[in-house]
């Protein structure tokens, strides 16, 4: 195969892999923000909990951190979700009664606490040095089949999460969620236990985020506290969800792939554009210009499409066959 074509193929594989991981994150956020209306600004924290749990459970023994459990990937992924679920429950107990913007502040705090813990509990996490040599499913297969195989793992997981979330969305449970989001008082008046439903939405969303984190740890083969940097773990996920279409699972997935492709591919385009207009130091400048351009594009887009690309569609009510 022509090496240039081969390279592009591998790049597309990596775009789809990371896009798929972000799509899982966006689906998790969609449960919280899209359906339940919970403003979780601490995505990076739960993402990180998943990444670190999977890393610790699957790595070989190493003097620098706890571990050496060498557990199967599936067990580690489930454990990552459970740990995140328990922590989300405890956090939810304290924070979920807060109104939207206060919840955002509280969850930012949670993510920061998590970052400080992994940074300081060196015995467990190797602190700022991070956990290295994390195994990746199918990495023993020859190149490039292993990359396709891991992409398969990500896409199958994404499809599974999507399927479950669609069932949830169309179920009575999903309708209660949107009712709470749109009018909490009337949901309460209809006899729904709002606190419990909000807690369920929060915990489920956080567990999905942890699943994405676990897969990301395998993909990167390395985690450190910088991996939970909010720019590429919290804010970009919100952008993906809002662009794609909040409260629409297909929209969350579309937004994730689209925004990630834009984010990544702009690094290829931007320096060439700057060079074409005769700018010196195009390489370094373009790193900043591209972030500016992405921001600008998102602004323009959201001005024109505040609903996102795929706006919310309500499931039909039971008993009626019109959809």
């Amino acid at each position, binding site marked *: 195969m022509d*090496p*240039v074509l081969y*390279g*592009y193929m*591998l*790049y597309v594989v*990596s775009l789809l892999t*990371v896009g798929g991981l972000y799509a899982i994150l966006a689906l998790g956020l969609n449960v919280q923000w899209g359906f339940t209306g919970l403003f979780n600004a601490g995505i990076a924290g739960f993402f990180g909990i998943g990444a670190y749990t999977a890393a610790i459970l699957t790595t070989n023994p190493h003097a*620098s951190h706890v571990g050496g459990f060498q557990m199967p990937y599936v067990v580690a992924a489930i454990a990552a979700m459970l740990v995140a679920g328990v922590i989300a429950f405890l956090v939810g107990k304290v924070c979920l009664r807060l109104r939207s913007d206060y919840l955002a502040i509280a969850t930012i705090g949670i993510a920061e606490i998590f970052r400080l813990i992994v*940074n*300081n509990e*060196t015995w467990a996490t190797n*602190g*700022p*040095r*991070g956990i*290295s*040599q994390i195994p*990746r499913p199918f*990495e023993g297969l020859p*190149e490039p089949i*292993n990359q396709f195989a891991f992409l398969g793992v990500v896409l199958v997981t994404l499809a599974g999460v999507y399927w479950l979330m669609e069932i949830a969305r169309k179920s009575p449970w999903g309708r209660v969620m949107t009712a709470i989001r749109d009018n909490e008082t009337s949901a309460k008046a209809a006899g729904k236990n709002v606190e419990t439903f909000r807690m369920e939405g929060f915990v489920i969303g956080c567990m999905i985020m942890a699943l994405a984190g676990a897969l*990301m740890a395998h*993909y*990167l*083969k*390395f*985690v*450190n506290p*910088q*991996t939970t*940097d909010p*720019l*590429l*773990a919290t804010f970009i996920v919100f952008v993906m969800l809002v662009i794609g279409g909040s409260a629409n699972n297909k929209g969350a997935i579309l937004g994730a792939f*689209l925004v990630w*492709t*834009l984010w*990544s*591919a702009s*690094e*290829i*385009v931007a*320096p*060439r554009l700057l060079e074409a207009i005769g700018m010196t130091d195009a*390489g*370094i400048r*373009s*790193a*900043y210009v591209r*972030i500016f351009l992405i921001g600008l594009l998102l602004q323009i*887009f959201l001005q024109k499409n505040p609903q996102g*690309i795929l706006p919310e569609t309500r499931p039909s009510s039971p008993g009626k066959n019109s959809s």
Partner: protein
Amino acid sequence: MKLVKQLAITACAAAMFATAAHADTIKVGSAGGVTGPIAELVATIVKGRDLARDQINAEGGLLKGSKLEMVIGDSACDPKAAVDAVGKLVNVEQVVGIVGPSCSGATNASVQAVTIPAGVAVLSDSATAPSVTELKDNDTVFRVAPSDAYQGLAIAQLVNKAGIKKVAMTYSNDDYNAGIAKVFEEEFKKMGGEITGNQAHEPNKASYRSELQTLTQGGPEAIAIFAYYGSSGITIIKNSLENGLFGKFFAADGMFDQSVIDQIGADNLKGNIQITQASSDTEDASYKAFAEAFKATGSDPAAPYAAHGYDATFMMALAIEKAGSADRAKIKDALRAISDGKGEVVRPGEWAKAKKLIADGTDINYEGASGSADFDENGDVSGVFAVNVVGDDGKWAKELLK
């Protein structure tokens, strides 16, 4: 869906741009945290890399006159961004080798996830984490920045040489200082010394009195500080002296700055502080050659890792020349050959000479601005370290450690 269409068009345009690269250039990736927490450091490191590129292109270029092109990849000091950026360099830009990335975490992730499987040589100019050494890398990961392991060892030797048997230590909890501190602890214990207390501290606190108070237990004769001078180091020394807790200090290069002497006073520190520093031998002919050229471009040759950036780029180019083609596999093998301590010495700026020697089939040995740059079996260099003490003029006086 209009946006989707526009995006598709942009992507196609990008693809066309990418393949339209001139056939007479050879691309090397220049990965680094261009944005992110160490953007300022990286800007100068990239200037060092670019100086090497310009000199090489001015003196005949690579192989049969191909131009060396350095393609920037923004690793942002974040493992996620680094894997993406380095992946693009390898797959889309089709670089033959990579100089960088800068941060250890970014390097660790991107070499494991991308370059080791792809078989592309990576030569980092500023990743110093010891964990890079232990990767199973098929001999593709190299660095010209010495591992922190070596600085930790250098400080341990200094303390030992000063006849001190019991020492307390504290480190700022970031990846750089924590790494050096860990090696120091291990090495000092190996030398038969005793660590009476070891405390991590968070930077930017107003006072470290309580931490220091705890550290005085067990009768330490001195304290080893692994911190940045601005965010905690100066405060720690001040608190120690004001309260009479510690009088003798050893420190790693994060503490090296004139403001340490200015704020605490030369009289208080003279004879009582020693700071190690990954250094260049400024008397060395290689360093002088680099420094002169770098100054001429308006940059500071003493800037952290700028000399390393220059060396890494020059060595990558030498490896391409030695390999005789832009073949990734041959280049990674050639990296060892051009800097194994044997052969005719080539110094910074001597591209035309090196080109001729390689053409004649003579073995060459690159002696870099940052040190001899001879790789050990792990692809690491031992580096050059200096110790700084307070001189008579109230400035740091540097002495190379041999």
